[in-house]
């Protein structure tokens, strides 16, 4: 297919990822994209024998599909869904992560999602966490998600940072809770102690997949086999241990 041809011809694989989704992707002290996703991408490139180039357009631009040869692969923590499947191909699910509920540290009463009925709960817009709060998840595998609450006031944010800044003002001031990826939340809580508290660390399992542009089954197969190798020989788990401190790799 065209993508594989291009990668072979130019000897470079262009990886596209979110500019800032620590610890999966972020700009490190050397001003290079780094993190779990970046390292997986490096390893994939190494095994393919090509050089890696990373680009970081906005998430909307990545997920709009129709890459037109701009990018070859997206190892970028994308949750597969039926609708996304219409514009992108998913190679394989490479890790799972739990969705978590966070409240302000001064909020001593909330013990589960149920307690937030009718209250303001934030999530990053366009993520499975927002869909969860809207009770509108459509997992690609057709599994059914349980929602242990009636209805909350969903407050979507363009970036999670702002949601956390709002919650940091104190529970109920602007926000009562946030639902997000436990793994991205964890470092934030360590960085700003005494501000937040994780209430429920396992709301639902959020699968994350590697995506490629449509129309190149050979490339898809090739990437799948490389990832499979990395999974089998424990490379993925090692990377996971390095960045996350736990093995979250999907078996």
């Amino acid at each position, binding site marked *: 297919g065209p993508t594989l041809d291009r990668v072979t011809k130019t000897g470079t694989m262009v990886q596209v990822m979110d500019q800032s989704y620590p610890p999966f992707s972020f700009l490190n002290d050397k001003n290079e994209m780094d993190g779990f996703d970046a390292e997986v991408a490096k390893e994939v490139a190494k095994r393919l024998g090509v050089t890696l180039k990373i680009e970081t357009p906005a998430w909307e631009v990545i997920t*709009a599909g129709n890459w037109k040869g701009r990018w070859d692969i997206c190892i970028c923590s994308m949750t597969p869904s039926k609708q996304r499947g219409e514009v992108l191909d998913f190679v394989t699910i490479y890790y799972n992560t739990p969705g978590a509920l966070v409240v302000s540290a001064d909020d001593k009463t909330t013990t589960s999602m149920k307690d937030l009925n009718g209250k303001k709960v934030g999530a990053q817009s366009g993520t499975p966490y927002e*869909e969860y709060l809207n009770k509108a998840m459509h997992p690609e595998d057709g599994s059914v998600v349980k929602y242990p609450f009636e209805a909350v006031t969903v407050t979507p944010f363009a970036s999670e940072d702002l949601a956390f800044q709002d919650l940091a003002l104190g529970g109920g001031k*602007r926000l009562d809770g946030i639902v997000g990826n436990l793994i991205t939340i964890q470092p934030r809580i360590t960085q700003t102690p005494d501000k937040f508290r994780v209430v429920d660390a396992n709301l639902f399992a959020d699968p994350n997949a590697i995506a490629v542009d449509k129309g190149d089954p050979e490339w898809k197969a090739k990437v799948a086999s490389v990832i499979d190798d990395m999974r089998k020989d424990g490379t993925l788990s090692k990377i996971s241990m390095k960045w996350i401190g736990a093995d979250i790799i999907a078996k």
Partner: protein
Amino acid sequence: MSFKGKVFLVWMLLAACFAAFVASFDLKLSLIAEKLPFLLGLHLTPNGFIQGLPLTLFLCLAAMVFSTILGFLAALGRLSGNPLAYGLATFYTSFFRGTPLLVQLMLIYLGLPQLGPVPGAVPAGIIALSLCYGAYISEIFRAGIQAVPNGQREAAAALGLPRWLVMYKVILPQALKLIVPPLGAQFISMLKDSSLVSMVGLWEIMFLAQSYGRSSYRYMEMLLTAAVLYWLLSIVFEAIQARIEARFPQGRH
């Protein structure tokens, strides 16, 4: 055929070209039809607040009023011989013209709570838009006021009118003719910049378009819908501006 008729034809032709270009994206029109009522604000948010187009309009109208007042005051400051007024006005305009609206919004939304008051999203958005555009508008007022021929000021002063009255009855009414066109242009800019306040969680047009676009993975459809709404709004704004301009007496001696 008249000139106007020909121009209209050219417009239709270009609009058709644009439509053909857009059609090449293979858009899912059903999605647009489904989401349009929300963008138009025909329903309230789950909180019972206005959303979409009415919210955008509300934010802009409020910010228009405040930014015009601010801009006028800052213009007086810049024209004043008082170093305090002049310094305040120039510092204000320099800062708010020189820094991105996004940063200003964040300073107000996240910074003000450090000092005590916790502004809600709507006030924060209106304050940020007003402060930012007030800085631009002050320049418009300054230029408009200065363009009124000095003879007008002198004639009014020679009649023994006090200074505020000269400004209010003689200078401002004449300056308006020069002020209205660029002011209208600023308001059209503001219309689009108001989308930035979606940052703080206001469900205006762009916010809804982006969240629907993200959740349905049909980003282009929603963006284009938003674009058409903004375009229509700005055409309406321009028409209102043209009407106001037409009411000014034409001649000047």
